[in-house]
């Protein structure tokens, strides 16, 4: 039984369709990410759940009840905004207490819950600070405490970490995940950062141009992308034009001078897609030449010129000798590490 259900939700602004045919079931306690480039409709979808926008078609249900019929102020969802949207004229404690005040929580209980919420996000002792006197990370924590203190049925996060610097963002990601695990609130995160989506979520909804491209666990979407868009959006990938020859026995898939037994199904011209870290330098395989070699500490990044076009290869810095720039190499990979799509690559 789905906890939060979006059933064929669509949103149109005039003639423009921003979200189309969006269906998703979210289980209780699940952490879901809406991932996609800007303008893909992920924030619009979030705003429809929050109630700031009404869907043009479709239904949104929470525990079987129609959510769209409920006024946004009565939905009881916790929302963290990209800009935090803290109340600048109130202290941190007053900001967090606001939602409880609206719910007529008695003063003593309110104070206790505010204290606990601020302590949970690591801001004990900051009760009387005003937002303008806090750092971006601290404001972010206040916004999170403010959304969580009302014990929301669903926590909605709209690019909450995009205004933080890289190091702080990583810290907050870990903290956010721990807090979510601890209190078990069903959470939806909107982000354009694939690393953020992968490190935080139970499942990722990859979106493009208002449509769902793929729904799956981080590993599934990364390892088994269902479309070229997904494979390119989630990390780097190599697309090679290949052909599958079913007349041979057993059938073979061939890309340049690389060849392997073909998977069942497709035939004719196909595109094979391999992650750069799954390609190795072998004795046989796709002929290529190293164009540039970049040392990145724990790994090497190679840009190669192969007979099927440019390719990138990532090798762990495991102490083995690595090919030098200008060196001719053979690119090889295991057939199970590639995904095959019909048609020539774009």
């Amino acid at each position, binding site marked *: 039984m789905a906890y939060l259900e979006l059933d064929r939700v669509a949103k149109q602004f005039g003639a423009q369709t921003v979200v189309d045919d969006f269906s998703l079931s979210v289980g209780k306690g699940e952490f879901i990410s809406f991932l996609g480039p800007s303008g893909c409709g992920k924030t619009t979808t979030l705003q429809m759940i*929050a109630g*700031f926008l009404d869907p043009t078609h479709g239904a949104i249900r929470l525990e079987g009840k129609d959510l769209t019929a409920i006024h*946004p*102020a*009565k*939905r*009881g*969802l*916790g*929302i963290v*905004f*990209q*800009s935090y*949207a*803290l*109340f*600048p*004229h109130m202290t941190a404690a007053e900001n967090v207490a*606001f*939602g409880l005040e*609206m*719910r007529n929580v008695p003063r003593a209980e309110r104070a206790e819950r505010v204290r606990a919420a601020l302590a949970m996000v690591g801001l004990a002792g900051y009760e009387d600070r*005003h937002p*303008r*006197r806090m750092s971006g990370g601290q404001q972010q924590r206040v916004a999170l405490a*403010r*959304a969580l203190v*009302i014990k929301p049925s669903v926590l909605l996060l709209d690019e909450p970490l995009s205004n933080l610097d890289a190091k702080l963002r990583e810290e907050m990601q870990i903290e956010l995940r721990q807090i979510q695990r601890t209190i078990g609130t069903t959470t939806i995160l909107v982000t354009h950062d694939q690393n953020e989506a992968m490190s935080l979520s139970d499942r990722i909804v990859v979106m493009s141009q208002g449509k769902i491209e793929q729904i799956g666990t981080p590993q599934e979407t990364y390892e088994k992308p269902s479309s070229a868009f997904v494979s390119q959006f989630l990390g780097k990938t190599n697309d090679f034009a290949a052909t599958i020859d079913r007349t041979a026995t057993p059938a073979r898939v061939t890309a340049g001078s690389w060849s392997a037994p073909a998977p069942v199904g497709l035939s004719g011209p196909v595109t094979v897609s391999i992650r750069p870290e799954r390609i190795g330098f072998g004795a046989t395989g796709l002929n290529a030449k190293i164009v540039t070699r970049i040392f990145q500490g724990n790994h090497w990044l190679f840009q190669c010129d192969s007979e099927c076009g440019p390719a990138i290869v990532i090798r762990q810095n495991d102490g083995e000798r690595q090919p030098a720039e200008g060196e001719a190499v053979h690119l090889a990979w295991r057939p199970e590490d590639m995904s095959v799509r019909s048609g020539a690559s774009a």
Partner: protein
Amino acid sequence: MSAAAEEPNTRAPWALTAPALMLFVGVLLIPLAMTVMLSFHDWGQYKGIEPVFILKNWHEIATDPYYAEMFWRTFRIAILTTLLTALLGAPEAYILNRMDGRWKSFFLLIILGPLLISVVARTLGWALLFGGNNGLVNKLLMSLGVIRSPIPFMFTETGMVVALAHVMMPFMVLSVWAALQRLNPQIENAAMSLGAGPVTIIRRIIMPQIMPGVLSGAIIVFSLSASAFATPAIIGGRRLKVAATLAYDEFLNTLNWPLGAAVATLLLVALVLIVVGSNALIERRYAEVFR
């Protein structure tokens, strides 16, 4: 880089600001000092101005209740005008800010448009509408039988407040508008998601944040209203004088320049004290929120 370039050149800034500085000193500071000095001079019907140092004018202002009444009226009108512009202007700015792009610029133009028209013309408009038996509105209402005698507008404090509020409204709207621009566009959604209704959002979230804008608008409107000349002169005329029209009359009708100078100086000093004082209060009150 040469050593000379690293040394701050102290002469250049002075040289560059000299023309503006000279203008400022020449047309503002010197006349102002002369006016203050003038207020200590003597004047007689037949002897004219005598350049002596006496406190006669100041003594007259301090003891004659006529002047006290005049100054109280000036500040009463200014305060009422300020309240009226705040009560109407703040909601006006808020509604304007919520409008769609095209309507927003249209109505903003309507609000700012009057600034392009002379204050005299705008005030004369009120006189045309409500000026005694010949006022258009009065005529219309009387012919319809709604009222029997003209609405008392000319030569009343109410009329002056209404006309001044009309003239000053753009300053209040612009000031509140500027404060609204600094509002986080998601702040109302944030409050709504926490369970706040529309009234609570305005009272608890919007109002406290635009208060500095309302107050700075109030300072502008108050000081401009208290020192306004054209509107009180047209609506109030000789019958209902305020400090500015009083000073004008002393200068140009009675020709008692020293007394007029004393009135003008007192108005200036009172206004500076009120504005500086309230500004300091506002800054202290909102220091924490709007640094």
